[in-house]
C-alpha cells in the first residue's frame, strides 16, 4: 500500500505537484479552443465588395458645396449570413467640380452626422463634432477629417467599396 501524505512528506509534495500539473494541463487544453473561438474574427478576411452608387452624370449635376446623401447597399458575408449593409454616402462637389465621397459617420466615435444648412456644417449629435462641407474638422472632439469611401468610375457609373481610404485602424464602415 502506498503511503498517505501524512506519513510521508515527499509523497505529499509529489501529490501536490501532480494535482497542479493536471489542473494546468486541463486549463490550457480548454483555454486554447476558447481563445481561438474568441480571437477568430482577427484572422478572418473581411468581405470586400463593390456596389453601384449612381451615374456620374447625375452626381456631377448636384450643386457645388451642397452635400447630397445617397444610400448605397453592400451585399456582404457576415459570419454565417449574407447581409445587406445599407450605408449613407455623402457626395460633395467642390468649386472646381471635383467629387468627394464621404462616410456619414463621425470620425470621433461613429455617430450619424446631420447636415445643418444654416451653419453649412455637418454636426455630430452625440459629442458635438463638427465638419465643414469638405469633411475637415472645424470643431469638437473628432481626431481626423471625414472618412472617404474607396470608389472608382466605370462605364459612367460610380462604384463604392465597403472600405475607407486612409483607415489604418480598420474602422468598420
Amino acid at each position, binding site marked *: 500500500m502506498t503511503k498517505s501524505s501524512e506519513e510521508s512528506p515527499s509523497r505529499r509534495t509529489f501529490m501536490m505537484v501532480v494535482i497542479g500539473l493536471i489542473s494546468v494541463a486541463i486549463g490550457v487544453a480548454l483555454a486554447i479552443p476558447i481563445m481561438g473561438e474568441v480571437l477568430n474574427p482577427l484572422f478572418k478576411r473581411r468581405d470586400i465588395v463593390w456596389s453601384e452608387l449612381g451615374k456620374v452624370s447625375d452626381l456631377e449635376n448636384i450643386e457645388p458645396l451642397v452635400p447630397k446623401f445617397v444610400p448605397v447597399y453592400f451585399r456582404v458575408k457576415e*459570419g454565417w449570413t449574407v*447581409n445587406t449593409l445599407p450605408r449613407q454616402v455623402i457626395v460633395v462637389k467642390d468649386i472646381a467640380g471635383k467629387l468627394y465621397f464621404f462616410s456619414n459617420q463621425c470620425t470621433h466615435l*461613429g455617430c450619424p452626422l*446631420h447636415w445643418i444648412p444654416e451653419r453649412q456644417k455637418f454636426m455630430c449629435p452625440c459629442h458635438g463634432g463638427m465638419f465643414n462641407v469638405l469633411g475637415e474638422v472645424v470643431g*469638437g472632439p473628432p481626431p481626423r477629417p471625414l472618412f472617404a469611401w474607396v470608389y472608382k468610375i466605370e462605364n459612367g457609373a460610380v462604384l463604392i467599396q465597403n472600405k475607407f481610404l486612409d483607415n489604418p485602424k480598420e474602422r*468598420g464602415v
Partner: protein
Amino acid sequence: MFQKIQNWFDERIELTELIKEFNGERIPRRGGWVYTFGSLLAFLFTVQVATGIFLLFYYVPYFPMARNATYYLKHHVLFGNILLGIHLWGAFAMIFFLLVHMSRVYFSGAYKKPRELQWVAGMVLFSVVVVLGLTGYMLIGNENSWWTINVLTNVASHTPVVGGFLRIIVRGGTETSVLTMQHIFAVHVWLLPIIVIMFIPMHLLFIRKTGHQGMALEYKNSKLSDDDINKWKHPDATVPFFPDQFYKDIIIALAVFGVVYILAVVYGAAIGPMYRPLALNFAPEADWYFLANEELLKYFPGHGLIVFSTFLIPTIGFVILFALPFIDRGHERSPFKRPAATVLGILFLLLLVYLTLIGGEPKAPATV
C-alpha cells in the same frame, strides 16, 4: 408532524443547525435601516434573473429580428409589457442602489481593514452590473442599440495598443453585424450573470468572516481609541439577522419592488423604432447612468487627447475605486473625523450628478 419532518432532515444533514448558523448572524443595532441596501441589491438581482430567464422565451439575438421580438413580447404577449418593464426598471433600480450602497459604505468608512476584500469584490460586482446594463440596452435591437454598439466599440478601440483588435473581437468582425449581437447576448445572458452569481456569495462570505463591523455610531459607548482594531469588533448592541434585520430588509425590498412594478406597469419599457443605418436625423441617446461618461467624451479633442476620455480617466477612476481601501488606510470611520475623504466623496458625487444632468444635451450649437 412538522417536528417529524424537521427531525428527519436534522438526523441526516443537521438542517436546523445550518439555518441557525445562516440566520443567526449578529448585526449592529443602531444602523439597521442603512444596512438594508446590500440585501436590496441581492433581491433586485434575483428579480433580474427571474424576469430575464423568461424574456428569453421570446427574445431572438439577431439584429434584424431582436427589436421586433422585443416588440412582440411587449405588445402581443400577455403581461409581457410588465415582465419587460420590471427587467428594465429593475436594472435602473439596481444601478441606482448600487451607487447608494457604495456611497453608504464609502462615507461610513466600512471598507477599512479588515474589509478591504469585500470592497474589492463589491467593485467587481459594480463594474459587471454597469456592463450588464449597457449590454442590455444594446440587445433591444432598436436604433439606440445600434448606435450604442457602434459608439462603445469605437470607444474600446481607443485603448492603447490593443484597441483596434479589441473592437474587432467584440464586434466579431470590422462591422456591427449578426455576430456582434450574438456576442453581446452571450455576455449579457451567460458570462456576466455567472460572474455576479459567483461574487455575491463571496461578498457575503467576507461579511461573515470579518464579523459585524458597523458605522461609527455603533460604537458610542466604546472606551477604546479609533486606532484600536478591537474597538470595531464590539458594537454597543447587536440583533440577529433573522428576523430583526431581515424584517427591515424585506420592507425596503417591498417598497423598491413596488416602485419598480408601478413604473413597469405605467411607463413600461420604451422599445423605439427599428434600427436604420440610413437615418439622416437620428440623435442617439445613452441611458441615464452613462450620461456622465458621455459628457466626458465631448471634452477631449483630437488624436492625442481622445484617449483621456475613452480610456485613461475611466480606467484611473476605476483603479482608484478598486484600490480605495489600500489608499485610505486610516482607522477613523466617522465621516466627521475624516473630512478630506468626506468632502472628496461629496464633490465626486456632485460632479457625477452635474455631468449626468448636462450629459444628455449635444454640445454642438453652443460652440459654433
